[in-house]
């Protein structure tokens, strides 16, 4: 495979803060590369530098073997585009949003119309041309932003947490679209995420970014076999628990994660394990739950974050759990900080990392 972009000793300093510290990275043509790391590890800054919208403090970028500097940054910008984590949309309709980038690429009105139609079909928003972009739901807005990036057919597509803060249905649409684009259009992609499962599903290679430094580059699987301390550090991920597992009579594993909390997992593991439960797989209830779920806990809400169509809650039930519910069910329950709640999740929702 040919190298499409090469980062050579890239650093970025803001005042006394070093956001990126001597980054060396080669991006191969057609690959899906994942940047893994917690919030604040420098993922967004690195993507912005790769998109040509932020200048590195030092270091060199080569795009298709040509050094990128002040005067030709514009050319790289036309070949590499970024989709932001916090959806940014122009205050106009969907058509104008998607057509914006095409005007710099000398397309006729008819070609623009066709392109807009084509990408809206790709993100499954056919017929949305005249809708006001900012009045769409969070997930739909992110799909418009993705369509806008796809419309300009760049060689490199940079995605900053493309599925953070949106509901599961939109997450699966976006993941489908990304797989399709890479397969059909051979677009090189860099996906920044803190979701290791997304990295594993979508990416061929991944880099682990911690405090502005690349700690490891390899396949996503390589990265997961890092010592758990490192994983736990990077993960600052929600619902990652480490403990000692024993195998039960039923053939499942019972993992003691401390603070008197035991999690049952539908797998057979013995000894030290790290497990993860997706926030959307945990059922939240104001009443004690009668369910087939093997894991049920009682706790109190310690944090509520409103993310638009979904709400994230932190629940202290011995250990801290993060739970994700739709805005609608949140409004039906009307929980407050300190409210007593019940959590439940299936043994099959527990994944080993």
């Amino acid at each position, binding site marked *: 495979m040919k190298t499409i972009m090469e980062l050579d000793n890239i650093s970025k300093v803001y005042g006394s803060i070093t956001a990126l510290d001597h980054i060396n990275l080669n991006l191969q043509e057609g690959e899906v590369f994942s940047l893994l790391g917690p919030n604040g590890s420098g993922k967004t800054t690195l993507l912005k530098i790769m*998109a040509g919208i932020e200048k590195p403090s030092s270091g060199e970028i080569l795009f298709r073997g040509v050094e990128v500097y002040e005067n030709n940054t514009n050319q790289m*910008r036309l070949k590499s*585009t*970024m989709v932001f984590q916090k959806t*940014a949309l*122009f*205050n106009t309709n969907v058509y104008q949003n998607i057509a*914006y980038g095409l005007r710099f690429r000398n397309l006729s009105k008819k070609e623009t119309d066709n392109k807009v139609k084509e990408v809206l079909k790709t993100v499954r928003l056919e017929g949305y041309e005249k809708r*006001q972009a900012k009045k769409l739901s969070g997930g739909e807005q992110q799909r418009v932003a993705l369509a806008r*990036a796809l419309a300009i057919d760049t060689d490199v597509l940079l995605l900053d947490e493309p599925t953070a803060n949106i509901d599961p249905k939109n997450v699966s649409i976006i993941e489908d679209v990304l797989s399709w684009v890479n397969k059909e259009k051979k677009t090189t992609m860099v996906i920044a995420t803190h979701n290791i499962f997304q990295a594993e599903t979508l990416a061929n290679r991944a880099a682990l970014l911690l405090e502005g430094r690349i700690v490891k580059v390899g396949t996503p699987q390589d990265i997961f076999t890092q010592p758990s301390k490192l994983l736990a550090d990077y993960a600052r991920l929600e619902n990652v628990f480490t403990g000692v597992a024993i195998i039960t009579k039923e053939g499942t594993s019972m993992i003691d994660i401390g603070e008197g909390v035991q999690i049952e997992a539908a797998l057979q593991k013995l000894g030290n394990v790290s497990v993860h439960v997706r926030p959307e797989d945990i059922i939240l209830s104001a009443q004690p739950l009668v369910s087939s779920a093997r894991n049920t806990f009682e706790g109190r809400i310690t944090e509520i974050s409103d993310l638009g169509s979904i709400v994230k809650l932190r629940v202290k039930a011995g250990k801290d759990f993060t739970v994700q519910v739709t805005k609608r069910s949140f409004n039906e329950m009307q929980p407050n900080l300190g409210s007593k709640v019940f959590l439940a999740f299936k043994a099959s929702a527990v994944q080993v990392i």
Partner: protein
Amino acid sequence: MANEIIDGLIKALQLIFSGDPTVVEISVRSILISGSATILSVLWGLPVAMILGLKNFPGKFLIKGFFNTMLGIPTVALGLILYLLFSKAGPLGFLRLLYSPAAMIIGQAILITPIIVSFVASAIESVDPDIKDLAKTLGASETEASIAVLKESKNGVVLAVTASFNRALAELGIVLMVGGNIAGFTSVLTTTIALETNKGDIELSIALAIILLLIVFVLTISMNLVQRHRT
């Protein structure tokens, strides 16, 4: 007194609907002078507002503070300063601008520049900071990206321009002091209303006041409608 007012009102309406040449001439001159002043202030105020809204540099807060303070400058004080500058013995006396429409346009333009600068700069600052990066990552150059930000703040820009024109049209101090209310040359709506009322020509004053209010209302309402239609 009540009869006088009603009588004046009826005669004023007659003046308006009969298309009285004096009424038409004064109204048109007012619109032209204040319109030119607005265009002039946009020409020099918009670049300043864009720099203040988009860039960060030392001393920026001082410049913003200056324009914010200037928002409340009394028109008579500004009129007096300009009178002294433009008068024969003044430093700009050689331009022979005193008592001319040009002096009135310059005076009003200076008066409303702080409105353009302050309102537009705030509108630009309130645009999502990612918009500029977004435009760039879609292929825009630095200048094209700044235009995209300005476009996002168009509601604020329209408001600033409307408010500026209204303030120019409605002010009296500057046009009176540097224009002099010369009939057929520099008399505008506000100066004529003030002086004709003193002279007892109440009908003409009422007619012109109605027109002044109509212009302000119609302009403001139509701008609101245009904005609502767009969003």
